[in-house]
């Protein structure tokens, strides 16, 4: 039973913050209604990005201010809005109500639930448009964001607060990489240290989004994830607002000192939605009919990914934007824009995909500009050798195609490279913990897989992993600690491997 006194106190508190002095309104009249974009005269006091309300209750956002009229994008259906209807300003910028109750929920960019549950009304109102944290509030990226994908964690590591682009043609597993990263967070930290995730679906098929939600739910990852969806059937306005709503939600948790991972799936469709709006708004079209501020559209969004310093709570937002290319062309307009904004890219290639290498990550073209600093000592000490061997393999493999006879040293390097490539193959939705990733890499770079046929190497390392988990918990603990692999750990590993190989038959 709630105490009567408490109720009164709460009401008094609410009354104290009650705004009663707003005695004027700025009104306008609808002149045109074009495909979800309204032109209205009047509204001389309207601000850019301000919310307005039409007489039938539909809301909109001011997106263009000109001498004679303002242009408003609708947040609801525009079928009931007619010429001459009254529209009034609200004095509020577009915002979304965020609280812990949003975790595990599926909402649209306005915070309206899409999962059939009740709307989250209590919480903090977070503006969709916000200036990103400045240099004083930031600190360098120094903590790893585990993806659970061997190839990424070892070769293209991502740090908390980083912006890493996932780029590739359709159907190559871009979303799978992002979803695996979300699933992987389940094993990284628990409780207050748990990395929270926001998945923003922009212009995606409802069936695809439903499938992803199902996967997250099945793996128990939806408990720490919020899905913001503006599907392909939604208006361009909602698709345009979706990533900003997502990052506003992420900022709420970051300001509380939490680490947040946000996935924008995908920014190509976001750019399309913005292009559609801009053309209807009558803004001048530039390259590929995109408006002049298309770069700013994504730069201001991705700049909100940040690692705050201790004085500002120490939270972070790691962004994984996704871009879809056409015929592996990364030099198109939107891909080059986003590549230049982000701190690296994971490039998925159709040739690798067709060759059965999945995830189809091209480690030669992929790069992480800041993530290496965030890699744990353990991973750094084993990944360095592997990177070198893989680079040598790539170089030799190109030449080896032309010659039939190779010297034993070259053949050895080629065989090793083949096995490294083989261990990077990983099934979808099966992210790995770091200790297992290190075990796999150590097994191959240490030459313990050289006598195993390349097509059997996956089984070999899988059985070895299981063996270590069964027999040598101490080694697992050492690798889990994140400390650099020293001589002792190396000896422990070698001992366990020799014991395992005694009983292993191909």
């Amino acid at each position: 039973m709630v105490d009567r006194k408490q109720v009164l106190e709460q009401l008094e508190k609410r009354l104290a913050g009650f705004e009663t002095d707003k005695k004027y309104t700025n009104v306008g009249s609808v002149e045109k209604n074009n495909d979800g974009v309204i032109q209205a005269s009047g509204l001389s006091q309207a601000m850019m990005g301000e919310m307005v309300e039409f007489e039938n209750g539909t809301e909109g956002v001011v997106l263009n201010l000109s001498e004679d009229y303002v242009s408003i994008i609708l947040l609801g259906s525009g079928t009931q809005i007619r010429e001459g209807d009254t529209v009034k300003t609200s004095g509020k910028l577009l915002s979304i109500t965020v609280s812990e109750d949003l975790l595990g929920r599926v909402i649209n960019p306005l915070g309206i639930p899409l999962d059939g549950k009740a709307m989250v009304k209590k919480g903090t109102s977070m503006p969709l448009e916000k200036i990103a944290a400045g240099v004083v509030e930031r600190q360098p990226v120094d903590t790893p964001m585990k993806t659970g994908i061997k190839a990424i964690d070892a070769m293209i590591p991502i740090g908390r607060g980083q912006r890493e682009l996932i780029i590739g043609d359709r159907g190559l597993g871009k979303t799978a990489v992002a979803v695996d990263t979300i699933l992987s967070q389940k094993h990284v930290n628990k409780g207050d240290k748990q990395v929270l995730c926001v998945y923003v679906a922009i212009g995606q098929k409802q069936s695809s989004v439903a499938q992803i939600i199902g996967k997250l739910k099945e793996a128990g990852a939806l408990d720490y994830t919020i899905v913001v969806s503006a599907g392909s059937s939604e208006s361009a306005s909602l698709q345009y607002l979706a990533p900003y709503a997502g990052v506003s939600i992420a900022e709420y948790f970051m300001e509380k000192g939490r680490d947040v991972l946000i996935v924008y799936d995908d920014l190509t469709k976001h750019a399309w939605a913005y292009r559609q709006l801009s053309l209807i708004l009558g803004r001048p079209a530039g390259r590929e009919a995109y408006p002049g501020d298309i770069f700013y559209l994504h730069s201001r969004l991705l700049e909100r990914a940040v690692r705050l310093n201790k004085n500002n709570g120490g939270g972070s937002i790691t962004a994984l934007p996704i871009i879809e290319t056409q015929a592996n062309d990364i030099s198109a307009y939107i891909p080059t824009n986003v590549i230049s904004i982000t701190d690296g890219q994971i490039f998925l290639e159709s040739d690798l995909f067709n060759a059965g290498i999945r995830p189809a990550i091209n480690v030669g073209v992929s790069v992480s500009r800041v993530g290496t600093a965030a890699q744990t000592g353990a991973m750094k000490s084993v990944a360095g050798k592997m990177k070198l061997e893989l680079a040598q393999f790539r170089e030799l493999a190109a030449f080896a195609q032309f010659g039939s006879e190779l010297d034993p040293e070259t053949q050895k390097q080629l065989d090793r490279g083949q096995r490294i490539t083989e261990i990077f193959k990983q099934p979808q939705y099966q992210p790995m913990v770091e200790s297992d990733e290190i075990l796999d890499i150590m097994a191959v770079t240490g030459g313990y897989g050289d006598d195993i046929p390349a097509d059997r190497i996956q089984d070999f390392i899988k059985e070895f992993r299981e063996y270590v988990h069964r027999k040598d918990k101490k080694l697992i603990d050492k690798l889990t600690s994140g400390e650099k692999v020293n001589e002792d750990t190396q000896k422990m590993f070698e001992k366990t491997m020799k014991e395992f190989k005694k009983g292993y038959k191909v």
Partner: protein
Amino acid sequence: MTKKLLDEIVEISFKENALDEKMIMDIASKLKRRELKAYVRRLRNELSKRSVMIISPRSFSENAKNLFHQTFSDKIVTFETDPSYLLGVKIINGDMVYDQTLKGEFDHITQRMRE
């Protein structure tokens, strides 16, 4: 028709702060359909800018009317009575609405409570 020309013909459509009917008819007869549409829209906006409407639940005294005329000396002032406002006065000055009525206050409170 250029924007400058449209501004000019709208300007000459007003005479001593009121619409010059003869001039408007003269201008309208010379315009094409599309131009006429733009002219009407612009004229309506300009009229709205130059007008002030005072609404009150009770009729205005001559004194009060004079006071409003003095306050908005450069505008076309019109008065309206609407008992549904209960108490107070509402001023519509161009696209600004100043609502100091009891009904307006109730509406504001209702809206806040709904939020």
